[in-house]
C-alpha cells in the first residue's frame, strides 16, 4: 500500500510538469513584448535591449522555464501586470467564495444524486427511474448560466425569497452566507447531480444483480440495509472515481457561475484577468485549479482501498 501510494504520488509529478510547461508557454507565446511595454514609447532600441537583458528575457526558453518553475515551487506566482500585486496574494483574497461554492456544491450533489441514483436502480424501469434518467440528460444539456438565470429569475426576482446576486462571507453569519449561496450551488450542482445520479444508477444496477445481494435478500436483510449497506458500499469505487473526474467540470462551471451571480471569487478573477490580458494571473489560476484537480484525483485513487478492501496493490 505504501509503495503504491509513493508510486502514485510520484506519477503526479510528470503530469504537473506538463501543466506547468503549458502554462509557461502561454506567457511565452502571449502577444506583445514585455520589455518594449515597460520601456515605453520614448525608449531607444538599446534601452529596450537593456531592459530585456535585465528581465532575463534574452535567455533561452528552457532556462527561463526552469527559473520560473523554481519560483513557482517557492510559492512565488509572479506579479499581476494590472494591479502590481503578487498573484498569490490576489488568489488568497478571492479563494473563500470559490472554495465555499465548491464544497457546498459537492455536498449538495452527493446528498441529492446518490439517493436518486439508488432509487432509480432499485425501481429499475419505473417512472422514478425514467424521471432520474431524464433529469440526467437535462442536466447535461442546460448550461450552468442558463440554469443560473432561470433560478435567479424565479426565486429572486419573481418570488423574492433569495438574494439575486452577491456574496457574504461566512464570518458575517451562517444564514446570510447560505442565503447567498443557495442559488449558485443549485445552478452549479445540476450538472454534477446528473453525472453522479447516472453513474450511481448504472453501478447499482450492476451490483444489485450480484449473488451476494440475492443472498442478503434471501436471508431476510431489510431492503434499506441491502441497498445502502451491501450494495452502495460495493458501488462506491466507480462513484468516487466519477466524483474526482467531475471536479474538472465543477471548476469550469464555477468560473461561469461566479459571473452570473456576481460572486467575487477566483472565477471572477480569471474572467477579469482575461479581459485585461493579465497573463500572470491567468497562469496562477490555471496552475492552482489544475493542481487541485490532480490532488483530488490522487486522493480518490488512494481512497479506493478504504472503500473496497479487495483492491490491493
Amino acid at each position, binding site marked *: 500500500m505504501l509503495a503504491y501510494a509513493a508510486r502514485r504520488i510520484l506519477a503526479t509529478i*510528470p*503530469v*504537473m*510538469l*506538463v*501543466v506547468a*510547461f*503549458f*502554462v509557461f508557454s*502561454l506567457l511565452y*507565446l*502571449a*502577444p506583445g513584448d514585455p520589455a518594449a511595454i515597460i520601456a515605453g514609447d520614448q525608449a531607444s532600441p538599446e534601452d529596450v535591449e537593456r531592459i530585456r537583458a535585465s528581465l532575463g528575457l534574452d535567455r533561452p526558453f528552457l532556462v527561463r522555464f526552469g527559473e520560473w518553475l523554481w519560483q513557482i515551487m517557492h510559492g512565488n506566482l509572479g506579479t499581476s501586470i494590472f494591479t502590481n500585486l503578487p498573484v498569490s496574494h490576489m488568489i488568497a483574497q478571492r479563494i473563500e467564495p470559490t472554495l465555499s461554492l465548491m464544497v457546498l456544491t459537492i455536498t449538495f450533489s452527493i446528498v441529492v444524486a446518490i439517493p436518486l441514483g439508488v432509487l432509480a436502480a432499485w425501481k429499475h424501469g419505473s417512472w422514478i427511474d425514467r424521471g432520474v434518467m431524464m433529469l440526467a*440528460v*437535462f442536466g*447535461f*444539456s*442546460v*448550461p*450552468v*448560466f*442558463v440554469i443560473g*438565470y*432561470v433560478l435567479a*429569475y424565479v426565486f429572486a*426576482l419573481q418570488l423574492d425569497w433569495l438574494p*439575486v446576486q452577491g456574496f457574504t462571507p461566512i464570518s458575517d453569519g451562517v444564514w446570510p452566507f447560505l442565503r447567498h449561496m443557495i442559488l449558485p450551488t443549485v445552478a452549479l450542482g445540476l450538472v454534477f447531480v446528473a453525472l453522479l445520479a447516472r453513474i450511481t444508477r*448504472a453501478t447499482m444496477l450492476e451490483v444489485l444483480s450480484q449473488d451476494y445481494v440475492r443472498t442478503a435478500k434471501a436471508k431476510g436483510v431489510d431492503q434499506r440495509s441491502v441497498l445502502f449497506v451491501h450494495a452502495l458500499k460495493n458501488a462506491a469505487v466507480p462513484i468516487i472515481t466519477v466524483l474526482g473526474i467531475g471536479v*474538472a*467540470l465543477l*471548476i*469550469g*462551471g464555477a*468560473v*461561469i457561475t461566479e*459571473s452570473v451571480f456576481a460572486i467575487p471569487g477566483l472565477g471572477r478573477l*480569471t*474572467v477579469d484577468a*482575461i*479581459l485585461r*490580458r493579465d*497573463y500572470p494571473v*491567468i497562469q496562477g*489560476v*490555471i496552475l492552482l*485549479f*489544475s493542481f487541485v*484537480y*490532480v490532488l483530488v*484525483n490522487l486522493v480518490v485513487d488512494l481512497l479506493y482501498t478504504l472503500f473496497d478492501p479487495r483492491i490491493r496493490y
Partner: protein
Amino acid sequence: MSTATTTGYAAAPVLGDVLPPAKQRGRAMTFVHRHPTIVFGGTLLLIMIMIAILAPYLGTVDPTALAPAKRTREPSALYWFGTDMLGRDVYSRVIYGTRISLIVGFSVAAIASVAGTFIGLISGYIRILDAIVMRVMDGLMSIPSILLAIALMALTRASVQNVVIAISFAEFPRVSRLIRGVVLSLREQPFVEAATASGTRVPMIIIKHILPNTLAPLMVNATFICASAMITEAALSFIGAGTPPIIPSWGNIMAEGRALWQVKPYIVFFPAVFLCVTVLAVNLLGDGLRDALDPRLAKRI
C-alpha cells in the same frame, strides 16, 4: 408444401394460430420503436440544421442592423423575440446564431476526433512513444477544459476559427485516451494477430482492421464532444472570451442581454432555449447511438 400434397400425403388440418400474429411494421416504424432517442434527437437536430441553412428565408432581417430608436422593444408581432439594447432584432440574431453554434459544434467534433484518433493510434502502436504521449495527454486533461480554452483564447484574437481551435485543443486529449484504449484491446484480438501472421503491414492493419473498429466509439464520442463544444462556445462568449461581439452567436446575445436581464429577461431567454434544445438534441442522439451501437460503451465514455 405443395410437393407434399401432390405426392399423396394427407394435408395437415388447418389449425388456428396459437400465438397472435406478429404485428407487421414497416422498417421505418421498427427503427422508431427500437431507437426512440435517436429518432427524436435526430429530428430535432435536423430541424436546427434546416433553421441554420434557411436562416435568410425565415422572416429574418439583417442580424447586425442597428436601430437605436427601437431599443429594447418587448416581443411583438413585428419583433417576435423583441429587440436588444442596440435595437437589433433578437429573433433574427437567434436564428442566425444557430449557424455559429452548429458550425462550432460540428467542427470541434470533427477536428478533435481526427486529431485524437491520430494521437491515439500512434500511442497505441508505438510503444516507445506511448508513455510520453500519454503523460502529456494526462497533463492537458488535468487542466479543466473551459480554462484551457479560455487560456488559448487569451493568446489570440477573438474569431470563430480561433474558438473552434481552442475548444478542439481542450477536447482532443480525451479522444486520444479513448482511441488508445480501443487500439490496445484490438491489438490482442485474433483477427489482428491473424493479419499480422499472414504478413500484412502495420499501416494496412491500421487502415483495414483497427480504424473501422474504432468508428463506433468515435462516433458516439463525437456527438458528446459536439454538445459540450456548443456549451463551451456559449460559455466563452458569455464571459467575453469567445466569438467577437459583432457575430450573432447565442453566447454573445446572452452576454449582451446580461446587463438588462432583470428588466428584459427575454433577451437572455430566447437564445438560452435554442441552445438548450440543440444541445439536448445532440445529447439524445449520442445516447441513442451509444445504446444502439454497443451497450458496453456506456461504461467507457
